[in-house]
C-alpha cells in the first residue's frame, strides 16, 4: 500500500480524499495556490507546498509543478480529484513517466473516452446503444443535412472535445443547420482548440442518468447502481440522487451491464461513470464516460455502503476488488445538494467573499462534505462549489424530510448561497413525484417562488416585531461587536455604510453612559 499520497486538487474534494487517506494510515500532501494558503485542504494535510498564483492555469493545472512537489515530498501516488487535471491523459502519462502512480484509469483509456467521437466509435464496435447520429466529425454542411434527414429533426450538433454546453447547438430545421454548424465549429475551435463537430438526434427533455462502475487491474468490473442527475442549471448539476425514481431493478441491471461493457471496451480501470440519456419511454443511450471520481459519488457510497475513494486507492495499489457483482446491494435512498456560493435572488451571480457566520447541520442520516469554514475568504478564482449536503434514509420521502430539516439547520452569512433553492426543489410537487428531466429546473425557476408568498401579512408583522426586539437585544448585549468588524476588513474603507455604522455609534453612546 502507498505510504504518501499527493492530492492535486483543492476544496471539498481534496479534504474528502485526505480523510480516506488518513483512515487508511496514508500520509497526505496538499498543493495550494497563493489564495489558498488558508484553505481547509491545506490546514488538514500532513504536508503542503505552494504551486503558484491564483489562476488555475498557473497553479492547479501545472503538471510540472505538481510532479516536482511529488518528487520533493516523496509521494508514491497522486489523487487528482475531479476537475483540474483529473481527466488529462497527458498528466496521467507524466505521472507514469515520473514513477508516481496516478489514481485513476490509464492514459490510453482516458484518450479513448476523452473525445466524444472516438468514444462513439468504440461503442459502435462494442454494440452499445448510443444516440443515433455520426460517430465522426462532419466533413461538410451537406453531410450534416443528409444525416439529419435520415435521423429526423431536431438534431444536436456537438463538439467532439466538448463539455459544459460549449460548441453545442440545437437545430430544429434544415435551413438553420449550416449556420449552426459553422458557429459550433468556431466555438469548439476557440474553446477546445479542436473544431471537430458531430451530429446526433436531439432528445428533447431527456433524463440524465449515470451508472457508477469500478474496475480493478485484474479484469474484474462491477456496476454500483445509477444516479439521477437531471436537475441541472446551465448544464451544471445541482441536485443528484440514488437510486433514480424512474429506474426499476430490471432497467438498473440492463444499464449496469451496458456500463460494464462500455468500461471493458475501453480497457477501463479504477472508478468511472457512464452517462446515459434516457427518453420518455425509458430507452437509454450512451452519452459519454467520465474517467474520474464524480462530485456526486457520495450518494452511491451511501446506497451501497462502499467507500469509493478507499477502493480507488486499493485498485491503484494493484489490489483485487474485494467483492463480486452479486455482493452489491442497493439499500435506502440518498440525495445530494450542491451548496454553491451564488445568489439565488440575483440571477445566481457568483458570491465569493468572507464567511462571517457558519452554522452547519448534522444528526441522523446527514453527511456533509465541505471545504469551507467560518472566517474563510472564499476566493473568486475557482468553481463556486463550497460543500455538499447529503441526506440518507430508508426511502425517498424520508430522505427528503431529513434534508429539509438539515437545510433549516444550515446557515451562512457574509456570502450568498443557493441553500434556499433546495428548499424549493424538495418541496416541489413534480420533484416529489419524481417527474424529472433536464428541463425541470428551468421550468421550476420560471414559476413564482412560493416561499416569497408563504407568510401572511400578519405573520410577517409578528416576525418583524421579533426582529425589532432582536435588534435591540443585540445592541445591548453585544455593543462591542460593531457591524464593521463583521464586514470584510480589507474592504472597510470601501464600504461607507460600515464606516458610519449605527451599531458602532450605539456602542460608543453606551460606553459614554
Amino acid at each position, binding site marked *: 500500500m502507498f505510504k504518501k499520497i499527493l492530492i492535486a486538487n483543492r476544496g471539498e474534494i481534496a479534504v474528502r480524499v485526505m480523510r480516506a487517506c488518513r483512515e487508511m494510515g496514508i500520509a497526505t500532501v496538499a498543493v495550494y495556490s497563493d489564495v489558498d494558503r488558508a484553505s481547509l485542504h491545506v490546514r488538514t494535510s500532513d504536508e503542503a507546498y505552494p504551486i503558484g498564483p491564483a489562476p488555475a492555469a498557473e497553479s492547479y493545472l501545472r503538471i510540472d509543478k505538481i510532479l516536482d512537489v511529488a518528487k520533493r515530498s516523496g509521494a508514491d501516488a497522486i489523487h487528482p480529484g475531479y476537475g483540474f487535471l483529473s481527466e488529462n491523459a497527458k498528466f496521467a502519462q507524466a505521472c507514469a513517466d515520473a514513477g508516481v502512480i496516478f489514481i485513476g484509469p490509464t492514459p490510453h483509456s482516458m484518450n479513448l473516452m476523452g473525445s466524444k467521437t472516438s468514444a462513439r466509435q468504440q461503442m459502435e464496435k462494442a454494440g452499445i446503444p448510443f444516440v443515433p447520429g455520426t460517430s465522426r466529425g462532419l466533413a461538410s454542411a451537406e453531410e450534416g443535412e443528409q444525416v439529419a434527414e435520415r435521423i429526423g429533426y431536431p438534431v444536436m450538433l456537438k463538439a467532439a472535445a466538448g463539455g459544459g454546453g460549449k460548441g453545442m447547438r440545437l437545430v430544429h430545421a434544415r435551413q438553420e443547420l449550416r449556420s449552426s454548424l459553422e458557429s459550433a465549429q468556431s466555438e469548439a475551435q476557440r474553446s477546445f482548440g479542436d473544431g471537430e463537430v458531430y451530429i446526433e438526434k436531439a432528445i428533447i427533455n431527456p433524463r440524465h442518468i449515470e451508472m457508477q462502475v469500478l474496475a480493478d487491474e485484474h479484469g474484474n468490473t462491477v456496476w454500483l447502481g445509477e444516479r439521477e442527475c437531471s436537475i441541472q442549471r446551465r448544464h451544471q448539476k445541482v441536485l443528484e440522487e440514488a437510486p433514480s425514481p424512474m429506474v426499476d431493478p430490471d432497467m438498473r441491471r440492463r444499464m449496469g451491464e451496458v456500463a460494464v461493457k462500455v468500461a471493458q471496451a475501453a480497457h477501463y480501470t479504477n472508478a468511472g461513470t457512464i452517462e446515459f440519456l434516457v427518453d420518455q419511454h425509458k430507452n437509454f443511450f450512451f452519452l459519454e464516460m467520465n474517467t474520474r471520481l464524480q462530485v456526486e459519488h457520495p450518494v452511491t457510497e451511501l446506497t451501497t455502503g462502499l467507500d469509493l475513494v478507499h477502493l480507488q486507492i486499493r485498485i491503484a495499489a494493484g489490489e483485487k476488488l474485494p467483492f463480486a457483482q452479486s455482493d452489491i446491494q442497493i439499500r435506502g435512498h440518498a440525495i445530494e445538494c450542491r451548496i454553491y456560493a451564488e445568489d439565488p435572488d440575483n440571477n445566481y451571480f457568483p458570491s465569493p467573499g468572507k464567511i462571517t457566520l457558519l452554522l452547519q447541520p448534522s444528526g441522523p442520516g446527514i453527511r456533509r462534505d465541505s471545504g469551507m469554514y467560518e472566517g474563510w475568504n472564499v476566493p473568486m478564482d475557482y468553481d463556486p462549489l463550497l460543500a455538499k449536503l447529503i441526506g440518507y434514509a430508508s426511502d425517498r420521502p424520508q430522505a427528503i424530510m431529513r434534508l429539509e430539516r438539515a437545510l433549516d439547520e444550515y446557515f451562512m452569512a457574509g456570502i450568498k448561497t443557493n441553500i434556499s433553492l433546495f428548499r424549493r426543489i424538495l418541496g416541489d410537487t413534480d420533484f416529489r413525484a419524481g417527474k424529472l428531466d433536464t428541463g425541470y429546473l428551468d421550468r421550476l425557476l420560471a414559476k413564482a417562488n412560493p416561499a416569497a408568498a408563504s407568510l401572511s401579512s400578519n405573520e410577517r408583522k409578528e416576525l418583524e416585531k421579533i*426582529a425589532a426586539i432582536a435588534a435591540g437585544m*443585540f445592541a445591548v448585549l453585544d455593543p462591542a461587536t460593531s457591524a464593521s468588524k463583521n*464586514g470584510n476588513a480589507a474592504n472597510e474603507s470601501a464600504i461607507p455604510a460600515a464606516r458610519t455604522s449605527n451599531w458602532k455609534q450605539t456602542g460608543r453612546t453606551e460606553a459614554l453612559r
Partner: protein
Amino acid sequence: MVYEIIVGGQSHRFELERSSGRWECRLDGKTVNVDAVIPRPDVLSLLIDGRAYEIKREQTATDLHLWVGKACFAVELRDPRSLRSRQKSAGDEKGPKKIVAPMPGRVVRLLVAEKSEVEAGQGIVVVEAMKMQNEIKSPKKGVVKKISAVPGTTVNPGDVLAIVE
C-alpha cells in the same frame, strides 16, 4: 435605554432596562417578557413568553440583516439621542445612483461609455468571478455620469463601479 428600530419600513420604539437580574422590555409601549443570550457571535437566542427563536445577524456592504427562521429583515437601528443617525435617513431615491459591485471580482469590460443614456436594467459593466461573467445593470433610466470601473482591475463588494443620474 431607548432605541428607534426600523424594520420593513415600520418604525418601532424599543425600551429596555435591566432590573434585579432580568430584562424589563417594552416594544411600542407594550411590555414584552424577553430573555436573551448570545451563544456565539452574530447569533441571538431569544425567549419571548417561553417561545424560542434563534436570530442570526449579517452585515452586508450596505445593510444590516437579521434572520428570524427563514425570513430575512433589513433592520436599521437609531439612537434617538444621536443627531447624526437621524440625518442619514434622508431619502436617496432621486438624484445620482451609485452602481456598486455586488461581489468581489475582476472587471472584464465596459458596456457603455460615460455620458451615454441607459435604460433601467441595461448592462453597464461586466465583472468576472468564479469562472462566470456577470453583467452589472443600471438600476434606473438615466445618463451615465461617471464610470470608475477599470477593465483588468479587481473590485470588492460595495466598490462603486459607475454612477447613473
